[in-house]
């Protein structure tokens, strides 16, 4: 059973501005479940795309059963025997369940799709997942969880020897996830190798045999038996604690000061229930939770991008109704550094000075809305110097910068606006270690100057480095609060316990009943 199916050595993949993969190795053996772990932005999804022929690697070798292969297209990868469930939704909304499942090689006769012959294999794949779905239903009518399962059924259809699952459980209920694990075990018993990517370490330890850990595009642990590692080992490898924990000078926020922002029993249209929190001047409040816990959505609702259905938002003790991010910025001085840098944070095709000064044009504007170019450039240059953004000129487009520098540009616009409350959402995802340090120090200094900061992060080390207290969020509710004592072991234990103590989610089950 120990024959190697797919092996990668020294794989390199470069994107504009980042080396997404920088010498990654991986060995997949038949009949095993292989965990691929790493923080957000460590390169897991990129590696999966290289292994399945979506991206051509810029360096390194791939071998299939000992022979070197070049996967030029996803189709070639499938023919070789590599199947995949990507993180993105990869279904055709208008097609039926059966047609989506058989999309790779639809049963056809003389150029015409044979719909009769389509249902049987589709039903077989669905049955394997214990899924009772009408194969003729268009997938656009299905719930997110059902769509996810259809994607897995689609991967089963191709009968691959290597099956890569990228965060397959992200939108599944525990019951559905268990069913999936059953399928995975059955597949490995038949000699398939399953690569499992997940943020949920408990799942990984329950299911996987071997593990590869990626950090900043490098493999820090390569195809090693999982049994030889503890939970903590793996976490340490993932976050590289030795690198990330920045020593900070002590800072003592005034716990008695009146809160700048207070949420009191807030419920939103997105599903948040009874959320209460307070942020005081000079305090860094962490909002920790797994992907999908509803942290960013909560902030967006506060900023007026979603409806608040119950409860009260108070700024400096006054109840407020914020209608738009514009009002949040100009009337209340709230800045929100988004987690989605490329889509919501920076204007990639615009010069840096515009990216930075967008929030202050209103202040700079004279009669007729005239913005003096010199003042604008000065404001931008000040921040470029202050944050140490490496650019060739203020006219350079933001899209030409590296990830870390883009993130700094995205941050700079809020510093330019002199915000009175800063909400930072995953500030260091996909940035290099040095920038990460710089960010931590910056946030620390800002808090030291009295700025209240609400920090959202899935990076536990970052939380423990920066936050004064950590609110733990799960399933759109605040589940508990932990005062940060700076001790990683104790803190992580307490936070994980809070997440686990929660009631089982009833999210997907009710939708499924439709």
């Amino acid at each position, binding site marked *: 059973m120990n024959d190697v199916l797919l092996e990668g050595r020294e794989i390199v993949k470069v994107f504009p501005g980042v080396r997404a993969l920088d010498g990654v190795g991986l060995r997949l053996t038949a009949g095993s479940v292989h965990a691929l772990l790493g923080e957000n932005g460590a390169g897991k999804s990129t590696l999966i795309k290289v292994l*399945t022929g*979506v991206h051509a690697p810029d360096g390194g070798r791939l071998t299939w059963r000992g022979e070197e292969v070049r996967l030029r*297209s*996803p*189709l070639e990868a*499938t023919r070789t025997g590599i199947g*995949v469930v*990507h993180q*993105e*939704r*990869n*279904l*055709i*909304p*208008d*097609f039926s369940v059966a*047609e989506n499942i058989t*999309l*790779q090689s*639809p049963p*056809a006769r003389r*150029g*015409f*799709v044979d719909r009769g012959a389509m*249902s*049987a294999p589709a*039903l077989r794949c669905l049955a394997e997942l214990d899924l009772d779905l*009408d194969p*003729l*239903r*268009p*997938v*656009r009518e*299905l*719930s*997110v*969880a059902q*769509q996810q399962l259809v994607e897995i059924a689609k991967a089963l259809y191709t009968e691959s020897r290597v099956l890569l699952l990228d965060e397959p459980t992200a*939108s599944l209920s525990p019951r559905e996830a268990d069913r999936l694990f059953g399928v995975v075990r059955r597949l490995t018993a038949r000699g398939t190798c399953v690569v499992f990517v997940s943020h949920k370490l408990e799942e990984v330890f329950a299911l996987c045999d071997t593990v590869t850990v990626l950090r900043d595009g490098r493999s820090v642990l390569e195809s090693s038996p999982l049994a030889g590692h503890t939970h903590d080992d793996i976490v340490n490898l993932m976050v590289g604690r030795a690198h990330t924990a920045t020593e900070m000078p002590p800072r003592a926020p005034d716990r008695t000061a009146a809160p700048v922002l207070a949420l009191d029993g807030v419920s939103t*249209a*997105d*599903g948040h229930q009874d959320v209460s929190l307070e942020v005081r001047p000079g305090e860094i409040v962490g909002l920790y939770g797994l992907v999908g816990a*509803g942290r960013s959505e909560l902030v967006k609702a506060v900023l007026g991008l979603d409806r608040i259905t119950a409860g009260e938002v108070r700024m400096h003790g006054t109840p407020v109704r914020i209608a738009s991010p514009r009002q949040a910025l100009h009337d209340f001085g709230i800045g929100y550094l988004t987690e989605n840098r490329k889509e919501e944070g920076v204007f990639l095709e615009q010069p840096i000075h515009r990216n930075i000064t967008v929030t202050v044009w209103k202040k700079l504007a004279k009669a007729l809305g005239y913005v003096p170019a010199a003042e604008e450039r000065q404001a931008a240059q000040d921040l470029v110097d202050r944050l140490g953004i490496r650019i060739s000129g203020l006219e350079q487009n933001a899209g030409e910068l590296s990830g870390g520098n883009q993130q700094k540009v995205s941050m700079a616009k809020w510093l330019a606006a002199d915000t009175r409350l800063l909400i930072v959402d995953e500030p260091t995802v996909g940035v290099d270690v040095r920038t990460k340090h710089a960010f931590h120090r910056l946030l620390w200094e800002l808090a030291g100057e009295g700025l209240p900061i609400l920090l959202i992060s899935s990076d536990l080390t970052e939380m423990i480095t920066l936050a004064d207290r950590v609110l733990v969020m799960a399933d*759109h509710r605040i589940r508990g609060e932990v005062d940060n004592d700076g001790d990683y072991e104790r803190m992580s234990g307490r936070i994980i316990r809070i997440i686990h103590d929660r009631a089982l989610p009833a*999210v*997907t089950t*009710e*939708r499924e009943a439709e």
Partner: protein
Amino acid sequence: MITINEYGARTSAALRRFSRSTTTTLLCVTLGGYLALGIASSGEFFQGPSVRTFLQYLATPVLIGLAQMVALCVGQLNLAVGALGGCTACLMGVLMADGGVPAPIAVAAGVLTAMLVGLVTGVFIVATRINGFIVTLGVMTILLGAQYRLAGTRTVDGYSPALKELGRAAPLNVPLVFLTALAVAGLLAVFLYRATAGRRLLAAGGNPLAARLSGISTDRQIVLAHTLSGLLVGVAAVTATASLPGVNRSVGGDWLLPSFAAPIIGGVGLSGGSVAVFGTVLAAFVMRLIDAARAQFSLDPSWVNFLIGLVVLGTVVGGRVHQTHLEKRGKAHGRTPPAPAGRGPTADATLPNAGGGQ
């Protein structure tokens, strides 16, 4: 495995889906409108000659609507529909009248040329990755010039009487050109709903990334869509040449807007992935009905455009309001947001197509 009961349940689900679709609404509107018009004209509208005129001028709108729909289904636009049609019509006319080419060969040459132009357009879009809007705009300009050059200021009418005969022929008062359009629509429907190639086309339009991951080349689908669009325009040009008394440089000049109106009213989205062959045919029907009603009540011809504008606006705005409503309900219902299938609702507010699918 499928018991009768289950089968019945599935059929009824499919029926329910159908009954809520745009096509059904259009069908009702068409039938209702037709009946109302018939009654208003005290039955005259149901009589042979009226039916014949009505259908005679329906063929070309149906075909150009379908040509545009094929481009839309991969998320592209074809601004050259009118110019290509006019140019092809003039080419066929000139070939027959001045070149003395026999009608069948001229027709074949015309259709092939149109198809070839579509092919070249598609290849150009894919090769340069320039936005399809601009490319087809450029092609449209070139074709307008070519059409003018072919026809000049004259009207070419001395071409094959046999072809004109065919164009005017109407067994049982159903014009042959209309039957041609219907047959083309039928073939297209079979292609898009049944043929593997057609399904690939729709897959690439519905979710380009997913299609690519399944081994479908989106580039090839874009080329195919433009080629097919060209072919359909070619057929439209044939029906126009056959049923018009002569061709000149104004043929095709007023095709562009109706070609968009038909699929959009028929329920085809601009972002790609959706087709509605029957819906597009019905929408062309509705637009023709408006025109017929206008003639019936002898109103100013401008009413037609005005009303079509309002119908298009009403269709898309109504559709969007309905969708937003559904999304809101979905949100209140469970906390998982509704399926982000394909593209987000706000994403397509900017540009209908992203060029050569980068």
